[in-house]
C-alpha cells in the first residue's frame, strides 16, 4: 500500500489536548467574570482578586494533570 501521510508518536498528547478543553473554558469564564465584576464595581477589584486566582488555579489543575499523565503514559520510543 502506498502511504501518503503518516502520523507517528503517541496518542497521549491527544489525550492532553482533550484534557485542556475543559480547563481552557473554565479559566476563560473565571477571568471573564472577574473583568465583568470589576467593570461593574471597580472598588471590588482587590476584594475579588484572591478569588480570581483561587478559581483560576483550581480549574487549571485539571489541565496540568492531563499534561503530567501525557508524559506518564507515553511509550518508550
Amino acid at each position, binding site marked *: 500500500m502506498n502511504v501518503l501521510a503518516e502520523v507517528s508518536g503517541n496518542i497521549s498528547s491527544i489525550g492532553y489536548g482533550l484534557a485542556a478543553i475543559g480547563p481552557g473554558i473554565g479559566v476563560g469564564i473565571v477571568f471573564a467574570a472577574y473583568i465583568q465584576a470589576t467593570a461593574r464595581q471597580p472598588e471590588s477589584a482587590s476584594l475579588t482578586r*484572591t478569588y480570581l486566582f*483561587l478559581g483560576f*488555579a*483550581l480549574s487549571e*489543575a485539571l489541565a*496540568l*494533570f492531563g*499534561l*503530567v499523565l501525557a508524559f506518564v503514559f507515553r511509550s518508550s520510543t
Partner: protein
Amino acid sequence: MGDQVLADTPFPPSVEDFYLPSIAFGSWVTKFSLLVWLAVAFVIIFFLVAYRNPKLVPTKGQWLAESAYGFIRDGVAKEVIGSDGLRFAPYLTSLFLFIFMANIFGVIPLAQISPMAHIAYPIVLALSTYVLYLYLGIKKHGLGGYLKDRLFPPGAPWPLYVLLTPIEFTQYFITQPLTLAVRLFANMFAGHLILLVFTLGGFVLLTPIEFTQYFITQPLTLAVRLFANMFAGHLILLVFTLGGFVLLGSGNIALAAAGFISFGMAIVMTLFEAIVAILQAYVFVVLTASYIQVSLSDEH
C-alpha cells in the same frame, strides 16, 4: 556533516532532558540542589541585609524587603485568613520569595531551569503546607472536631453525607496537597519543555542549510555539548544565536525563516515564563493561606 549535527541536537526534547549530570560528590550535588541552595541563600541574605540597619526613612533595599513583606501580609495573610493571619505573614512571605526565586531561575541565563521542574521539590513544599493546615485544624478543634467539621459539613440533610463525605475526604486529604505540588511542578516543567522545543527546533530547522550550519549551528552544538555537562543551560543557545540573526545564507529560505521564527518564539515564551514564575509563586501562597483559613474557620 549536517547529519552529525542533527544527531547531536536532542530533538524532540523529552523527560530525559531534565535529568542533568551531577556536578560533584557523586549524585549529591546537581544543578537543581545548587539552585535551591542559591534561592535559600538569597532569601536569607536579602532579609538579613535589608534589616541589619533599619531606618525610619527606608533605604532602597529596606524598601524592597518591606514592600515584599507588606504585599504578602496585606494582600494574602490579612485578606485571605483575616486578622488571625498576621502570625503567618513571615512564613508566607519567605515561602513566596523562595518559590519565586526558584521559579525565576527558569529564565535566568546560565541557570535556565527551575528546580521546581523536578517534582521532588514541589512535593516537599506541598507537604509542609499539608502538615501545617492539618496541625492548625487539629490544634484548634481537636482531632474529632476537625474531622467532623471537614467530613460532615453542617447544614446538609443526612442522606447527602453518603455523597458528600467521600468527596470532602478526597478534597481535603488527597487532591488539595496533590494539586498544590503538581501545579507548581507542571508549570515549571512545561515551561522548560516549551523553551526546549523552540530553541532546539530552531536548530533543527537551520542545520540543513550549508551556510547557517557552518557558521551557527555547528560551533554552537560543539560549545553547547561541552557546556551542557556543567550547566545544561539550553537557552544559552538562544543568546549566542541572536548574534547570528544577520547571517542568513543561501539555501532553503523558508526553512531558515521558520528556524528564526522558532528562536523568536523562544524569546517570547521566555518572557511568558517570567510571568508564570511570579504568578505560580503567588498562587501557591494564596492557596496555602486559603487552606489555613479553612482549617481555622469555625464553620464550614
